[in-house]
């Protein structure tokens, strides 16, 4: 059997608030196969966003191991992590996090600036990613000239333009109306089923979770149950 893309063992994360230690993740184990589509659900404070940040190398665990495609993520230093993120992870945020001064195409091109690609090739790929999310006609628009759903689709194009191993989505439909949210979820379906992208999505929305292949419920920093 093929090794899982993501192997998490004994993952622990504590925050310090003065003298008080606040446990967020308590020895969590998790495997995610290549091509999987996982929804993470749970009440606020259950640790789902923390887990997502740790998987994406945005934060360091207090203890435990994260192996992604054979790379021990927790052992990388800040600069190595940045380079690893650029190659391996695509982030999609609830509030889109587009850069307001850049056009849609420039936002999508952003991660490619960290590669050795020529300017022409970067533009070609950015345009292809925009076409994939159905926004070819919005390439020169700035974020404030786009609707929320369009902004999120630009965010998705930015996340997939480097062809990363893993797409990490933090409440991607949380700020969208139902129609725009559905369009985003349709895109994830296509990316997972047709392009074979591995997706981990934090969500509060059961309708969004229902589109995933499996749903993990976190409670108090551990996996409480799983649905497929």
């Amino acid at each position, binding site marked *: 059997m093929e090794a899982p893309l993501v192997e998490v063992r004994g993952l622990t994360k504590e925050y310090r608030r003065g003298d008080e230690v606040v446990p967020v993740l308590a020895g969590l184990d998790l495997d995610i196969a290549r091509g999987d589509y996982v929804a993470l659900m749970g009440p606020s404070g259950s640790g789902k966003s923390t887990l997502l940040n740790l998987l*994406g190398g945005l934060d360091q665990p207090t203890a435990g191991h994260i192996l992604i495609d054979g790379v021990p993520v927790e052992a990388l230093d*800040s*600069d190595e992590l940045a*380079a690893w*993120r650029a190659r391996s992870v695509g982030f999609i*945020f609830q509030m889109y*996090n587009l850069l*307001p001064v850049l056009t849609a195409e420039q936002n999508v091109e952003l991660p490619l600036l*960290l590669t050795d690609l020529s300017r022409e090739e970067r533009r070609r790929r950015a345009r292809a990613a925009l076409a994939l999310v159905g926004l070819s006609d919005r390439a020169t628009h700035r974020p404030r000239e786009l609707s929320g759903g369009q902004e999120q689709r630009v965010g998705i194009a*930015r996340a997939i333009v480097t062809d990363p191993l893993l797409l990490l989505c933090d409440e991607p439909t949380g700020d969208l109306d139902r129609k725009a949210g559905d369009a985003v979820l349709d895109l994830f379906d296509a990316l997972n089923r047709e392009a074979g992208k591995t997706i981990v999505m934090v969500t509060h929305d059961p309708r969004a979770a229902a589109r995933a292949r499996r749903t993990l419920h976190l409670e108090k920093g551990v996996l409480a149950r799983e649905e497929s």
Partner: protein
Amino acid sequence: MARGPILAVTWMNLRSLPARWGPALVAVVGIAGVVMVLTATLAIARGFKAALNFAGADDVAVIVRGGSSGELASSLLPTEADVILDAPGILRDGSGPVASPELYVLVDLPMRVSGTAANVPFRGIGPRGRTVRDHFRIVAGRMFTPGLYEVVIGRGAAAQFRGLKLGDPVRFGTQTWRIVGLFEDGGSVTESELWADVHVLQGTYRRLGVQSVRARLASPDALPRLAAALKADPRINVTVTTERAFYSEQSKTLVTLVTVLGTAISIMMGIGAIFGALNTMYSAVAARTREIATLRAVGFGAAPVVLSVLVEAVLLGLAGGILGGFAAWVAFDGIQASTLNFQTFSQLTFAFMVTPGVLLTGVLYAVLLGFVGGLLPGLRAARLPITAGLRAT
């Protein structure tokens, strides 16, 4: 490290500047103010130096009584002046030695700006006084007539003091004099003075002797010869220097004072401006917290983020430097001012000189202020926790 990410982040940063123009303007204006003060100070020091340097020729000797620090404290009897005029090393032509025995007194005149009385040098020059000064020329009216109560006034003196109008009578000592001409001397310290015939001035102030002799040297290397001859002469005790050395010695304290004081003030103001720049850049970083966190999440390293903040701060500093330098140039360049040179107890008029060198110094200082003001905020930007930054509003 690749240039792409750095340029991209820096460019993005600068593109967002118009949205943050308020704090940016505060930093620019703050730095501009500092640069204006620094530039003005340096322009004063430069103006002093120019006024005093220009006054000094290397082939003209100034001879005063031994041990006196300037002309005011010196006195030479007529016989002593004659000994000097006969000494070797002084240029001679058909009319005798090219030299001018000169009397130097101070008169009171109200300053044009404040109305307070100031000491103005009133110099009596010998018949050959003009021949020991290369840059002297009458720009209005005419030269005084020897033997008459007539004065010519320096351009600097005319600008700085009240009651010096061409054609007007003016009372000095026991006599009424008529102002008959206005002169220039290449912007030198001499332009702070009033000139008359030495014999008329001697009579008015009941002096027999003079205070100094200015003599053109027969050759540039004749000074040691002249000095040695006068030193060996038991009838007199005098100090012999070139005119340039004479003036430079007289202005040393003043130039040092202005430079040191001005630099100290600029450094203190600079520290204030650094706080302004720090504040601006901290608020710039705060305003861009989410952008910076997003860039870091996407995979941009810390270096482009630090550099982008630094580049912005340095550019704001540069803008402040150029603005301040330009303002100083418009406001001060060429302005005539005067101050008391306490080494000579006389008023020295000079022009603010905002030279390219002065401007460059100001702009470099501004860039330094921007750099220092951007360093800490830049480091903070790089150390912002990404996870919290992503959710910042």
